[in-house]
């Protein structure tokens, strides 16, 4: 699978020349593969065999069968012959080896897979260093802040740091346990803030934030005296409403920075429809959710006005208008308690949908379905 590599059409002659040039490499690769396969078939689990797999995997880190063999070698080696280089030592050696590969091939599943395997083996030995892993993944996300594997690995490491920390602290009650976890998750929350302030379009960071917020809120709730340890953060997290206000303020900046950025709008949709926030708003005062929706509608309409003024033909901004439809739909639902998609469609909303067909023609079919009440304009779950 080739991604993002410019095409070069080789002439027959150039192909032959390349093949000629590659010949030695091909022979070396095939001979080495053959050698490693026969060692594997003979169930040889030796330090020499391990070295051969290193050379081969450096040539081809996607060779999953060789990673499998390497794991079998590592688990079957007779370490007593090398007292200083025991199993844990070799597993840690592999982590270094993997790091050099990841720098070159950050998107190869098999490398990430072998890394987690090594770590779980180290867990079994009680010799894992999750903090080091944390440093590794932070460095890799510096290089590519949207790397899918990197973010997943970060969540994996954090999960394990949480497990380890609660085990170490051996909390005797729920409050102590929450306190241990809070520190970790607050740092993760701050990390997403940092990534977002560097690049507002980093949806990976927004996504992680949406997972962390409910978690941190519930952890604070479980503390005996929640405002003591992290008073500043607690200011944000003291209630779902305060979180919502904080996040809406943050997102407002993003909306004004780039009204065409998908990430910011998707996150806003979450804020406006998440049960945690809605329930809290309505609990505090009847109609509070409704007035918040109206406030947000006003903000987006103001932004849309500015965007319209900037457009040569005075068009609405696409994302502003999509959001206006969503918020107006939510308002209709709140005011009328409508459950049928058709009942949400006021003439005003219908006009917006018709405008969207003009300014966002790619998704014309969706807007037509919505106009006909075949699809809802607000999320149904």
């Amino acid at each position, binding site marked *: 699978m080739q991604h993002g590599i410019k095409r070069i059409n080789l002439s027959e002659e150039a192909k032959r020349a390349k*093949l000629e040039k590659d010949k030695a490499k091909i022979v070396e690769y095939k001979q080495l593969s053959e050698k490693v396969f026969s060692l594997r078939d003979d169930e040889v689990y030796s330090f020499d065999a391990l070295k051969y797999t290193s050379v081969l995997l450096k040539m081809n880190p996607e060779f999953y069968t060789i990673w499998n063999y390497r794991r079998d070698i590592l688990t079957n080696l007779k370490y007593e012959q090398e007292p200083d280089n025991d199993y844990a030592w070799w597993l840690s050696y592999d982590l270094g080896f993997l790091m050099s590969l990841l720098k070159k091939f950050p998107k190869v599943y098999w490398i990430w897979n072998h890394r987690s395997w090594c770590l779980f083996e180290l867990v079994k030995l009680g010799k894992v260093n999750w903090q080091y892993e944390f440093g590794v993944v932070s460095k890799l996300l510096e290089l590519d802040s949207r790397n*899918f594997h990197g*973010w997943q690995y970060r969540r994996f490491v954090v999960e394990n740091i949480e497990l380890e920390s609660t085990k170490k602290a051996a909390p005797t009650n729920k409050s102590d346990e929450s306190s241990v976890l809070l520190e970790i998750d607050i740092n993760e929350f701050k990390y997403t803030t940092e990534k977002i302030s560097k690049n507002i379009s980093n949806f990976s960071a927004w996504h992680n934030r949406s997972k962390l917020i409910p978690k941190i809120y519930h952890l604070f709730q479980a503390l005996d005296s929640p405002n003591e340890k992290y008073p500043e953060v607690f200011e944000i997290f003291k209630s779902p409403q305060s979180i919502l206000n904080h996040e809406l303020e943050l997102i407002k900046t993003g909306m004004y920075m780039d009204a065409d950025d998908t990430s910011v709008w998707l996150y806003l949709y979450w804020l406006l429809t998440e049960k945690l926030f809605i329930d809290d708003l309505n609990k505090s005062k009847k109609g509070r959710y409704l007035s918040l929706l109206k406030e947000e509608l006003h903000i987006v309409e103001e932004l849309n006005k500015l965007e319209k003024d900037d457009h040569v033909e005075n068009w609405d901004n696409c994302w502003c208008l999509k959001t206006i439809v969503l918020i107006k739909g939510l308002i209709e639902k709140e005011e009328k308690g409508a459950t049928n998609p058709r009942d949400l469609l006021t003439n005003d909303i219908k006009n917006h949908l018709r405008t969207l067909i003009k300014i966002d023609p790619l998704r014309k079919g969706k807007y037509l379905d919505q106009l006909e009440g075949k699809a809802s304009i607000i999320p149904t779950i």
Partner: protein
Amino acid sequence: MTDTEVEILPLLREKHINYIIEQDSHRSYEYWLSEHLRMNGLYWGVTALLIMKSLDESLPRSEVIDFVFSCWDSKAGGFGAFPRHDAHLLSTLSALQILKIYDTELTILGSEKREQVVAFVKGLQLPSGCFQGDRFGEVDTRFVYNGLSSLSLLDELTPEIVDPAVKFIMECQNFDGSFGMLPGAESHAAQVFTCVGALAIADKLHLIEDDTKLGSWLSERQVLPSGGFNGRPEKLPDVCYSWWVLSSLSILNKKHWVDLEKLEAFILTCQDSKDGGIGDRPDNQTDIYHTCFGLAGLSLIDHEKYNFTEIDPVYCMPTEVTKTFKKWKS
């Protein structure tokens, strides 16, 4: 952004057929490095040729089947990607798909191998409902799809397998309505296909059917000016998402939520007009993976126009093959 005329380049059918046939003849260094993908590559090649209705005259049936069986890993009881490579769920599904194309009853497998491969796939399901790719524990919604699809091809699904798998998939759904590789992971269009496809196989689409959120998220993957699909917000378009996104929309009966003509134009601009094949973006290196999913996308857009075989969005196999499957009813 008005409805402008879209220029649609011609499909280079003959060149693509040749490109696929030639895959095995230019044995460069890179060719040898890609052995670990050969079974999948063969499935992509066979599927691409089938879509263009030229499988039988282009690839000798016996050679294809012989290759598949040469990758049988008798120790694990599954198929590897290449002779002597270890069995893996990814290559096992590809092998079963290829065999199923030639022999819908899979009698060719023989009862012993059949039993072993069923045990191999079933044995990879974990208590969480997820499947691991092999005995070393990598988990991902890709493997849930692989597991359910393989067992569906073998007609071996049971509630004990389906129910926990479905539960796991639903844990991977995010606030944007879309799905990630694991619970908590960011939404990604290719994972959406694996999750929606698995739910379709499990006959559990009602769990997401009312949700316009997922349909909207998928339709937002189409970007301008190219008209191609990206895999996540604020990323570049790539031909392979023509399949991952459009198949998912197709399963949800929402193919009309995107501009099919613009997508068609994008896929066709990614063709290599000299040597055939399709790349991820215009002027980029071609490969068999993007060639297959580009053509599969075109088949979903309008198979009649291209005189293509109709493709089943759930299995990524011709509907004439999948209609013979005994479908699971929950």
